[in-house]
């Protein structure tokens, strides 16, 4: 492997990617000449976002070590009662687009794509956070409300083929999905009452938990199989004298059948706990809390069996308006099938600088979090290489007490 290839490979591994929040507008000046036969693109990135929890908390969890109470308290103070969300997207994709080869579809090119995805999100109540990070002692003689809440984490890979329209970049692709792991909980109702002096813990719980084979989720394991479709339709029209580009699409709309070793717990229960019942007070050695006893007592034994789940697909609509000269503004809306995700609206302003560079600024609201300010850029190097780089939230790199952090990058070769 020569030096440029090595560097490119390193960059792409470092910048695991996912679908960009709002694609930079197509620009015939900056973009690669679509007349070339082959295009190979590598993209990757991560995006974390939350609507209440400050970045310093997940960063602290990531870095390890002791989490100071003040740090945890700051996020607690910022929480709403029951509409707290957080989530992340992590992934990378490689696309190959070949020369037009379909006699009956002369404008369409073959497309092959492989991708890796890891996504997770949660929706939680303030009391859940407080119990997790401060314990139940402050709830003495009170009830902690632990629902509605949900959690989902999915790892999967796709390989697929499709066709892409050479000029508009619209495409249709069908993917085979290899599911590596799934864990999801949906808690419709749950509470925990802590009695005075801790003399009783009383819980109510209505919810379920599903997980793929718990024996492992390594790269060598396939715990589920599925199929998914992705498509994007790009078009444009005139609005007065100005050109409007409109696009809409869906990514990874499909299902995975998680295999028979998968597990589930479905509970609708009231439970009152007064302590382990000990037969003889003089025989207490090692009486306390083996995992098996705990699971039995709480009725948390798994049942095994296959199940099917929708992938955390994404649907989006976006439009951009040419303002004249090199300026352009855009608006996009996207939604993901993930707990806690609300439609995210993004506005973007972009300007072409010279003939090789396009710069953009974004403001987005929704998704897992609140308002974010981002930057994006793409630059062409010569006639064969185009590099994309964007972040949905610039302050995330500099401030701990903000919410959200992400980075996406991509390169495209033409040959």
């Amino acid at each position, binding site marked *: 492997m020569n030096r440029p290839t090595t560097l490119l490979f390193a*960059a792409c591994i470092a910048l695991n990617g996912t679908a960009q929040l709002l694609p930079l507008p197509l620009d015939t000046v900056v973009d690669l000449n679509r007349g070339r036969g082959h295009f190979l693109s590598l993209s990757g990135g991560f995006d974390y976002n939350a609507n209440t929890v400050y970045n310093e908390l997940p960063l602290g969890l990531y870095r390890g070590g002791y989490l100071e109470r003040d740090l*945890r308290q700051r996020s607690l103070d910022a929480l709403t009662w029951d509409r707290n969300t957080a989530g992340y997207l992590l992934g990378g994709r490689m696309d190959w687009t070949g020369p037009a080869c379909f006699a009956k579809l002369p404008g369409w090119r073959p497309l092959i794509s492989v991708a890796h995805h890891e996504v997770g999100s949660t929706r939680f109540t303030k009391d859940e956070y407080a119990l997790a990070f401060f314990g139940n002692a402050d709830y003495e003689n009170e009830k902690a409300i632990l629902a509605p809440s949900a959690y989902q984490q999915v790892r999967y890979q796709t390989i697929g083929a499709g066709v892409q329209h050479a000029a508009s970049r619209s495409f249709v692709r069908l993917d085979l999905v290899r599911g590596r792991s799934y864990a999801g909980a949906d808690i419709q109702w749950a509470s925990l009452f802590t009695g005075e002096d*801790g003399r009783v813990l009383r819980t109510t719980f209505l919810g379920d938990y599903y997980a793929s084979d718990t024996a492992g989720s390594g790269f060598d394991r396939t715990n589920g199989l599925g199929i998914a479709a992705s498509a994007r339709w790009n078009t444009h029209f005139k609005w007065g004298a100005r050109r409007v580009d409109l696009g809409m699409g869906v990514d990874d709309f499909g299902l995975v059948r998680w295999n028979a070793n998968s597990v589930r717990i479905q509970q609708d229960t009231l439970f009152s706990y007064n302590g382990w019942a000990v037969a003889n007070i003089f025989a207490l050695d090692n009486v306390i809390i083996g995992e098996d006893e705990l699971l039995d007592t709480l009725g948390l034994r798994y049942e095994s069996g296959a199940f099917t789940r929708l992938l955390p697909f994404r649907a989006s609509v976006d439009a951009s308006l040419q303002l004249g000269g090199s300026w352009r503004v855009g608006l996009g809306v996207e939604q993901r099938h993930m707990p806690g995700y609300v439609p995210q609206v993004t506005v973007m302003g972009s300007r072409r600088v010279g003939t090789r560079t396009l710069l953009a600024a974004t403001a987005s609201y929704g998704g897992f979090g609140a308002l974010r300010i981002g930057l994006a850029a793409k630059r062409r190097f010569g006639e064969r290489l185009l590099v994309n780089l964007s972040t949905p939230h610039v302050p995330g790199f500099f401030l701990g007490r903000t919410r959200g952090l992400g980075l996406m990058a991509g390169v495209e070769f033409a040959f």
Partner: protein
Amino acid sequence: MEYERQLCRVASFGLLILSTLTACRKDAEPARWDVDVLAPLLTTRFTIADIIPDSLQSVAADGAITLVYSEELFAVDLDTVLEIPDTSFIYPYAFPLPGNDQFALPAGFPVISENNLIRFNLPDLALSKLIVREGNLELRMKNKMGSVINGTFGLPGGVFADGTSSVVATVGPGSVANPAYSSTQRDLAGGSFDLRGPSFNDVNTLATTVNAQLDPNGNGASVTNQDSVIVTAEYSGLVPHYAKGYFGSRTINVGPESNPLGLFNNFVSGTLDLDRVRLQVKVENGIGMDLRIRLNSLQAVNTRTGVTVDLVHTILDGPINLNRALDLGNSFRSSIYEDELDNDNSNVDLFLENLPDQLQYSLDLDLNPLGDISNGNDFLYHDSRLQALLELEVPLNIIATDLVLENIVKPDLPGNEEDQTIRDGDLNLFATNGFPFSGSVVLDIVDRDRNFLSAVMVQGGITAGILGADGLVQATTASELHATLTSEQIDLLYGEGRFRVRIAFNTADQTQHLRLLERYAMDLQITVGARYFVNGDE
């Protein structure tokens, strides 16, 4: 080349940005934080059965509990009276030929034909009959002659379990330089042997016959004075099923010996005043001979306090004469001696109030103190034994004064010594007491050898149930105790430390004995408020 430089810049920039995250991560150390946990730990109901098993309780119709306890004081087993050592008898045969003479023996020539009497070495015993429960006869043959030797070993006075009375053995041809060997085993279990000899007037004596001949189907042998045949009969592992005879007149000294007594193991100090105590001494003689026992001493030893109390009763003043057991043919009926000790004729209450953990005794046992008055008809079966039992009956009508019950508990804390998940905390005990005694708790941390390490401050005490005019508990009381564990004490508990819980009981009325009823109970709940470290504190 220009592309390459630009590409390097892009890749380096991406890696630089990501490094703002990853460079800070301490891979070996997960995030950890402390949470304040408040939860019930355990609940239990304390009843008398927790210190006195149901099997040792007798409950009257009114619910009053009597402790019924039986303990073997001593036993003299079969092997004390009769033990048969492993015994070997050798039957040699050599040819009395002069010099280098050789002599040709034909096939079938008898080389040994002997009738013998063998005598077992049984000092003090004169057995006339023995039925074997376990045992083995091994016939070993050594042959230097050049022919197969066929041998027969007979016991005219005995019958094996299969009804035969002889053992056949064969040894191959040997030579002076390379003798041949053989070994034949015979299980003696179930065999019956008359030990009176051929004239029925001897003891410990077994008649035997040994015959050996050259193989009649062989070629005979040429022998010299160097050739020989040696037959060895070894009796081993003989355990009698039944023995009859005269077992001798002798004295066996037993003790001083100590028997552990587990009845009061959990009590470490304080006084227990018992209203009434009844102790029945029961001695059973299952051996068919007269016995005389002189009980020299019987002591209640409390090794925790170092106090020893001697039992005072007429049973220690004079000998106990025990008649012989009755032989029923295939079994026996023991003769029994019984005596009863109580507060009025002995100090048995003080004996027991010492809360002994050992009973120490010494005695002399005379066998056949009057000599052979059965005319050689002493007997014993395998199950025959001399046994002394103590049967104790104590109505639980007590006055307890600072009676301390001790228990050692090693808590199974989450995490481990290097990765502790609990830093400090409070233990709370909630008691609903239906017993007529109060309790104060002392909580210490001790090491594996019970050496004191740290004291845990306990606030509060358990109040006694409310007594009615009849001295019985009419209503329960509720109490709370609180103990705070420091981080240093938690460290000890993660290490070798363990809780030593001592509860000092005092009956509510110290002037009269209070009855303990079966219905009495104390409900206990322990809760914990602790600082718990998610992913440990290190």
